[in-house]
């Protein structure tokens, strides 16, 4: 059974300058469609990567799944139950089962807490174990993430490096034995030479402790290394989803294709092909009808602008893309 089912997930932010604002500045009410109808499923134990540029809604999706924000539409089902209908008890259990690893190791740790207190905070807040058991589990988890407990448990965040802090962050998330871990760009603020270590740690632990993982990043190079399946988002909607190596070797959606081709490679002989897309990334404010990518797509057709956004279509087993072009294989390459 799927552990997580996201269906039509939507998060809109209303920006209303108010009557005075409208009169003075002429601004009207705007809707920021941060996430606009995203659907996917996850099987227990898999690692799903969510890729996309800034403004695509991947971070908002994380916040919605972890219930730090409430959606404006759609459903999130965890182990078959709709999380919007949780009572206090169920919410408590959910908080324990679904954890986050944050991007900024310098901001996500309370500067006033020692490492021990930071990791123990989750269990203490949820009241799951008594003092002795909590202490034992904290020590165990610190060892799990590669931090020697005696050395690190009394240290404050400012006494540790970025890599060490991120390990503490991971320990905070894992001490509760979660079933689903959402990692929001955990490496982007770390030095290159230590990223691989943290990435390996996450991958190892996900297999050893058997948790499902959502890994969000804008860096396809990293995603290609860690995720088993990949979801590409653009301006709040899902463009393509499929097994990572299939998606990278054979991207179907023009946006995914452009993204994959634009990834820089550490090889001086390699020249990135000029992406065919044009224009700048738009902001998800009051988007026009039709496919979100229409304004930049090199293969855009009238249907893309006028018809509602295309639905996901299976291209090969497990590999889906939302593009009108897939309905007309012969029309690929046609331009307006």
């Amino acid at each position, binding site marked *: 059974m799927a552990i997580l089912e996201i269906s039509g997930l939507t998060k809109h932010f209303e920006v209303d300058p108010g009557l005075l604002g409208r009169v003075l500045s002429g601004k009207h009410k705007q809707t920021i469609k941060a996430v606009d109808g995203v659907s996917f499923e996850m099987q227990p134990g898999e690692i799903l990567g969510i890729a996309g540029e800034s403004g695509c809604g991947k971070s908002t999706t994380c916040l919605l799944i972890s219930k730090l924000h409430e959606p404006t539409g759609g459903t999130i089902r965890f182990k078959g139950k709709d999380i919007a209908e949780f009572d206090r008890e169920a919410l408590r259990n959910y908080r324990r089962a679904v954890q986050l690893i944050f991007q900024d190791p310098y901001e996500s740790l309370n500067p006033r807490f020692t490492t021990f207190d930071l990791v123990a905070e989750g269990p203490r807040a949820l009241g799951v174990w008594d003092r002795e058991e909590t202490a034992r589990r904290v020590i165990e988890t610190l060892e799990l993430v590669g931090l020697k407990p005696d050395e690190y448990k009394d240290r404050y965040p400012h006494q540790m490096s970025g890599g060490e802090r991120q390990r503490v962050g991971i320990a905070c998330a894992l001490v509760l034995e979660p079933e689903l871990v959402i990692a929001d760009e955990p490496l982007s603020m770390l030095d290159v030479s230590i*990223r*691989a*270590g943290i990435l390996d740690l996450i991958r190892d632990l996900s297999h050893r402790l058997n948790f499902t993982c959502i890994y969000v990043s804008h860096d396809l190079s990293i995603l*290609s290394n860690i995720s088993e399946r990949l979801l590409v988002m653009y301006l709040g909607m899902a463009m393509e989803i499929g097994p990572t190596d299939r998606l990278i070797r054979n991207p179907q959606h023009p946006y995914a294709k452009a*993204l994959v081709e*634009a990834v820089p490679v550490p090889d001086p002989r390699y020249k990135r092909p000029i*992406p065919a897309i044009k224009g700048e*990334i738009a902001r998800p404010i009051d988007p026009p009808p039709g496919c979100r990518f229409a304004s930049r797509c090199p293969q855009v057709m009238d249907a893309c602008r006028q018809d509602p956004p295309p639905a996901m279509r299976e291209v090969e087993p497990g590999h889906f893309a939302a593009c009108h072009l897939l309905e007309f294989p012969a029309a690929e390459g046609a331009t307006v």
Partner: protein
Amino acid sequence: MLLDIQDLKVHYATNQGVVKAVDGVTLSIGENEVVGIAGESGCGKTTLIKSLLRLLPGTAAVSADRLAFRGRDLQGLSDREFRKQILWNEISLVPQSAMNSLDPVYRVGEQVVEAIRAHVETPRRQARERVAHLFDVVGLQASLMDNYPHEFSGGMRQRAMIAMALALEPSLIIMDEPTTGLDVLVQERIIRKLLEIRREIKSSILLITHDISVIAEMSDRIGIMYAGRLMELASATDLFEQTHHPYTLGLKNAFPSIKALDRELISIPGSPPNLIGTLAGCAFEGRCPFAVSACASERPAETEVGPSHRVACHRLGDVETMRIQASEKSTWQSSKSAA
């Protein structure tokens, strides 16, 4: 030779001791070439360029055996002379997070005009024409001159800063992390634009970044810095294909590549050394899997291993073995503590 730097040192006096942010860097930049300096946080690359442009605070002590621009000694110039003659005219800077360097209350075009007029006596109209031309060069519509920074996207702001750096046709443009924080498609565009511009105006570029892919794409020559010192300096192809230094080998392993989905990523355990006080031996010794006793006591001199290819390492004789062993994870995992 455009810029000749020999044994540059930047030391800060602090309560805890002397911080050697840059500890003896020798580097030269020729006409019309792109030199990239790669290194991680704390390696001294930002301090290096700030020292070149005299943007460091008063507590920094800058010294060099030689620091010359087009043969002219820079160290002898007073701050005022430097500001008038070199800064922005000959050497300009696109700072880190340049997109956040624009003043939010002034129009973007105005800011570039002001930058020009601060250095050269120009009637406003002429300056505006030049800015319009610069916007065109960097790929921005001239009509955007009258917009405010918040109306520009991150990539557009970055291009505006590049326009500002090009304003007085400097011979050397220094760029500090020009594409960090930008989405990959925007990044690609800006890099492509920079390479185009460079072909046209024939300036040299000194580029510093932690992103090895970007530096591989843009640079003619690459230097790898660690703990304030240059570990390896070579042409871009030589650096990647004839890698000598263990740190460079480690960095190559640590970078994931979308073209090599199956390659295992290997991180370098440990962290950079404390820059306070004197580091007797090689700066990388604490994390190097190939370190021997000489590495801890004696600082390796820079050795020429090929045409304009210099490496600072004691174990160059075993470079073939090092290359083979470096690609195995077990080599790196031996003794050092968690990162």
